[in-house]
């Protein structure tokens, strides 16, 4: 039997899922034991799913991270937070919809939530600029983070951006300066910060809300200095070489854990987050709760010293 490709496996899984649905909606007539049949199909689907996950290339993972059904920041707000109060605007220029900010509770804990938002429908995607924040988005996040510092709320940031917006307006309003200032301020913000990459961790645009005390990444998310397409266009002179550059860039969760850049990989439900968003949100919520509990036993001075050390030690070089 020849090895099946990722696409063939995906099709097979879809086919089985349709069969399960058909069986479930079919009227029971007692002649056939439906539940045994469904159980059997589910087992087959799960084993194929596992096989598929083991075959994924780095570029397949990038595609999963960008999957149109993958849960987004706004979904996690709905599934993970209670009593959410959204806070808009950077009090300087505008309200960037690619950056959701607000107060909410995770279990009993109060947090400031920051999440990059891509949007689901076409209309939403355009409003959110496909998850590419403008300078006002970074300034909005910083303005709310200072609020959290003043009132001693821990900060949770969910990272999901292809990158910061590269256009004329963004340059006019100081995209580089806005991101730099966020990195700088987050390095010394006197409150605990949790950063989690939930989808795309696109370079400086991700780092602009990505400095903190705990850094985790979802199993099929990625984090990279440049998009695989951008890297391929520059180094291979052709964006179609993105699968090769994705492999070269070592941008998967496993790579980042190996490098010691992230603290942990957060497992996704079988077949990735979009197959079961509710379970994904429960897992993520549990992880954040665990981190929030850990912060209770550490002083702000220690927290800031550890935060400095975390970034200070990253780098590989030789001194002769």
């Amino acid at each position, binding site marked *: 039997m020849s090895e099946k490709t990722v696409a063939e496996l995906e099709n097979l899984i879809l086919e089985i899922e349709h069969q399960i649905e058909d069986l479930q909606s079919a009227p029971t007539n007692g002649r056939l034991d439906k539940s045994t049949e469904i159980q059997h199909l589910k087992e087959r689907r799960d084993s194929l799913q596992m096989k598929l996950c083991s075959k994924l290339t780095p570029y397949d993972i990038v595609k999963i991270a960008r999957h149109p059904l993958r849960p987004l920041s706004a979904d996690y707000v709905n599934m993970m937070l209670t009593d959410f109060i959204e806070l808009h605007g950077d009090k300087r220029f505008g309200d960037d919809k690619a950056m959701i900010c607000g107060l909410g509770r995770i279990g009993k804990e109060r947090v400031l939530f920051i999440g990059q938002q891509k949007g689901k429908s076409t209309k939403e995607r355009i409003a959110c600029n496909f998850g590419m924040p403008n300078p006002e988005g970074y300034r909005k996040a910083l303005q709310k983070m200072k609020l959290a510092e003043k009132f001693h709320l821990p900060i949770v940031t969910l990272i999901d951006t292809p990158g*910061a917006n*590269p*256009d*004329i307006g*963004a*340059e*006019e*309003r*100081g*995209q*580089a*300066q806005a*991101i*730099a*200032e966020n*990195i*700088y*301020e987050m*390095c*010394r913000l006197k409150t605990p910060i949790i950063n989690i990459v939930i989808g795309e961790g696109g*370079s*400086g645009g991700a*780092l*602009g809300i*990505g*400095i903190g005390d705990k850094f985790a990444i979802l199993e099929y998310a990625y*984090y*990279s*200095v*440049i998009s695989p397409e*951008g*890297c391929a266009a*520059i*180094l*291979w002179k052709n964006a179609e070489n993105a699968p090769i*550059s994705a492999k*070269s*860039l*070592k*941008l998967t969760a496993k*790579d*980042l854990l190996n*490098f010691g*850049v992230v603290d942990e990989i957060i497992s996704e439900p079988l077949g990735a987050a979009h197959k079961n968003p509710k379970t994904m949100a429960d897992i993520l919520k549990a992880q954040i709760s665990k981190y929030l509990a850990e912060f209770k036993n550490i002083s702000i001075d220690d927290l800031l010293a550890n*935060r*400095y050390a975390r*970034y*200070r030690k*990253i*780098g*590989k*070089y*030789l*001194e*002769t």
Partner: protein
Amino acid sequence: MVFFRKKRNMPDGLWVRCDGCSSMLFKKTVEDGMFVCPECNYHFRIFSRDRVKILVDENSFEEMWPNMVPCDPLNFKDRVTYPERVTEEQQKSGLKEAVIVGKAKINGSEVMIGITDPSFIMGSMGSVVGEKIARVTEKAMELRLPLILVSGSGGGARMQEGVFSLMQMAKTSAAIARFQGAGGLYISILTDPSLGGVMASFASLADITIAEPKALIGFAGPRVIQETIRRALPKGFQTAEFLLEHGFVDMIVNRQDMKKELSRLIAYLQ
């Protein structure tokens, strides 16, 4: 890349064409004029070693950590392997890496200084650049000296070192935040080109930001922006003058006046 270097079609390298106004200039005149075109004030891109000569007192520069070289944590290979590229760039530029740092004097007053060099892998920031910038910043804090960082980086964060390069943005910014928190004076000088991860980290975080005339400065490279918006970019977009107009630099200073202006600023602020 528009470098000031001998061109093959110019016998004996006596003449050089200005990239600003296309005038043919006597090379010696340009060199004596700090690599600035006497006709149109075009500032040629220069090597970090030449920058040292222009900016600080003669023989005052003491280079620190000169023997730091990059590793290849990703086993990166495009058309050539990363170690091959590094060797090639080292031979071409005569530099070990894209930054030199050290202690120097400006009109007698001591400073810590770092200069990125666009002739080495586009002046991009990998682990070595990040580490040396962080060290020179920490040294400035320890010795209570002003910090001057000259950026000339078209590459931003270096792709070949992947996420390690990205994290240098965090490392350098964290070091500068500490230094400034302790009352240190940091002056950033933006030269042609200053883009990407360098601009979105240490280069944008100074107490005083100075740009050289007409330098290309921004976050996204102009080609990326043009491909995204699919129309021509406005004239003068992302130049030093554009940044001044939009409020992101304190002043534009001609290369010939840079040392004098640094001295005046230090006298006020240190």
